[in-house]
């Protein structure tokens, strides 16, 4: 298979000189993917890959493959793919597989443009990803790095933030919301949950609500996502949310406060349910401590009022404290990087 956009590495391991190892943490997200290297800048890319539809678009665009926001902007000239779904690889068609490979190649290219370093990567996957999904990610990334480990995303966040004991991490992404209780060990299945009512669900709910209210309007999922990313809130609106979209070809300003509120509220029941259930199942002597150490991360944690809502709701069970990490979008990749850096060399050599 020819994969456009995949970095051509000189060698996988043998060609790297001593001291040129680069550790990377990768958060492959349904909406955005992030990579944090041990040396150099971090990068964030929208998880879109597009190939020009025909020779005309290839000539106009001047590139054989486009990624992220660039791909989204030129989507009408592209065969556009969003190859990740619910935080794992879709792998339904050959082209989607190519898109995953190209996206991973693009991410690695950003941190290792000369392809001259030995790469050791830790990749985050949804907390309850099936073994098959983990293997699919492992296979896709494994080709481009020298050594690889796969960990649960919320665990990577917890590790990076230093919340290793008596804490609960909730990683709110586009495809999944991942829950994980940390108790001084790697969490097992009983300590983790994955809910699929995440950012994408809000987009769909918002689009449905707007389409129902303005049947003549031209709105698509992409626009709904943009509205959410700018204005999403839970609880009382700080101000009315007014946006522009066309109705019968004319751009009109609409007040979408109510629709946006309902859409954002739609992820709250499972969020609260999983949080309460996981804590309630934990050792009773530690439940109070965990309830007072709930950490939100991921793009969805930026929804205004979400931490306050959760704290208020969890207070029904006892004292609760919910905080949001300072850099929610990179928290997963940064945590994975910390794991990669701390991992003893002998483990890498064996894995």
């Amino acid at each position, binding site marked *: 298979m020819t994969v456009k956009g995949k970095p051509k590495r000189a060698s996988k391991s043998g060609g790297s000189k001593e001291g040129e190892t680069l550790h990377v943490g990768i958060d492959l997200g349904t909406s955005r993917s992030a990579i944090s290297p041990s040396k150099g800048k971090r990068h964030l890319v929208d998880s879109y890959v597009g190939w020009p539809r025909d020779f005309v678009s290839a000539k106009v665009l001047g590139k054989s493959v486009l990624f992220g926001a660039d791909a989204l902007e030129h989507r009408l000239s592209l065969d556009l793919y969003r190859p990740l779904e619910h935080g794992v690889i879709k792998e339904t068609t050959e082209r989607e597989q190519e898109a995953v490979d190209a996206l991973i190649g693009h991410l690695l290219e950003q941190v290792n443009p000369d392809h001259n370093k030995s790469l050791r990567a830790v990749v985050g996957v949804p907390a309850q990803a099936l073994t098959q999904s983990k293997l699919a990610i492992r296979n896709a990334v494994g080709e481009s790095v020298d*050594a690889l480990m796969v960990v649960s995303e919320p665990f990577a966040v917890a590790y990076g933030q230093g919340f290793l004991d008596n804490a609960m991490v909730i990683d709110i992404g586009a495809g999944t919301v991942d829950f994980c209780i940390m108790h001084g*060990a790697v969490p097992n299945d009983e300590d983790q949950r994955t809910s*699929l009512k995440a950012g994408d669900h809000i987009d769909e709910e918002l689009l449905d609500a707007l389409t129902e209210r303005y049947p003549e309007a031209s709105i698509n999922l992409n626009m709904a996502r943009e509205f959410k990313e700018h204005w999403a809130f839970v609880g009382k609106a700080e101000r009315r949310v007014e946006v522009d979209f066309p109705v019968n070809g004319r751009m009109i300003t609409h007040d979408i406060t109510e629709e946006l509120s309902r859409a954002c509220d739609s992820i709250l029941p499972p969020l609260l349910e999983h949080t309460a259930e996981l804590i309630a199942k934990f050792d009773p002597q530690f439940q109070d401590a965990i309830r007072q150490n709930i950490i939100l991360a991921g793009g969805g944690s930026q929804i205004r009022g979400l931490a306050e809502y959760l704290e208020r709701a969890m207070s029904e069970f006892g004292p609760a404290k919910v905080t949001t990490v300072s850099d929610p979008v990179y928290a997963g990749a940064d945590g994975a990087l910390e794991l990669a850096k*701390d*991992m003893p060399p002998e483990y890498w050599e064996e894995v």
Partner: protein
Amino acid sequence: MSSDPANTAPRPKQAILREVYESNRRLNDGVTGTASPVARATPHRPGRLRWLLALPLVAAAVALAAWNAPGPPRAELPVATARVAPADSTPEPVATKTETTETPAPSATRPPFADETKTAGPPGGFLPPLPNDLRVPQALLAAATAPRPAHGAVPRDAAPSDALAVYSGDGFDDVSLRSLFGLGVRTIVIDPGHGGIDPGTSGKLGTREKDVTLAVAQRLKALLEHDRSYRVLLTRETDVTTSLSERVALANDAAVDLFVSIHVNYLPNTTLNVIETYYFGAHSDADALRLAEHENRGSDYGMSDFESLVRNMRDTIKLQESKRLAAAIQSSLTGNMQRTKRELFDVGIKTAPFVVLLGVKAPAVLAEISCMCNPEAERRLRTPAHREEVARYIAEGIVDYLEANTRKGDESNDRQRQAKKS
């Protein structure tokens, strides 16, 4: 784990790193069977995972094709003929595995049931277990296992169900074995396709197959429980990830009598809205195989499991009844829905190698209740009213099937009484 205080004691960071390393080793070992590391794993091959998933399908298709293929009478079918696997697609052909172990050959390579009992069974008649471990009463089987006149031999292209058909002197009666043996239906398992991390197919409006199937299944359960007082179980009650083998295990553990899997189709490059109902068999056409590949995604059966399941396909009662059940549900769904939805295409009942149908030890069908690629169909699938409607029609199909069997059973008893008198 969560409630074990010993496990809640903080561990040093090194211990956590060690656990991460061990879990990744286990992930590798689960696939390769050795501790071969990720970095030294064979280079990534595009679609390798899909190929692995498709392997059981290829094996099933080959086995079933051989089963139904014209050729020498099945009793004389050379075993090796049916074991041929495509050389270019199977590094370790099924045949090799089967031959090196001493497990019995798959049912497709075996002679029909009656011949088998005659040639290989111990005196007095060896009876392989039927679904749900039901054993056929000796008296009832006498007709089926008695030496047959030459003109009554099972034709080489006969359906597998014919192997247990009853010889009445004029040929083989098309009598339902279920009704003949008085096997009542008590437990019905409804299987809402996909779920959890596997959304199934999606429409342009964002409707997800897993949501539709669950909603329809819940309504169907309520209808069946209300009207017929059956014990009705769902393979998943909520939006949770459930593997195909877990669904099969749940059904078998519950001693299922009927199994109905509910799915929604998506046809590529068209907006046609078709309804089709499947039972297990070699794929009827390319679309059926494509669909089976799609619905079998997430199967965690190993090859050894699959071989064992294929062997179980000699359960002729299951095939026969699955076909009848599929026909009843298809007829009810299309007959009712075409009255108001003119764009619907009735493509009838089909066969395809769905893993979930193969494993269940009872009559099992898979209904594709609509097509998400049709915008109007997708819009309807989002409404509670339409979901209720679909559930009602499936329920009617199930009830029709059960009532038809009851009638057949009565007729069969009448014929037997008359035969005894004469």
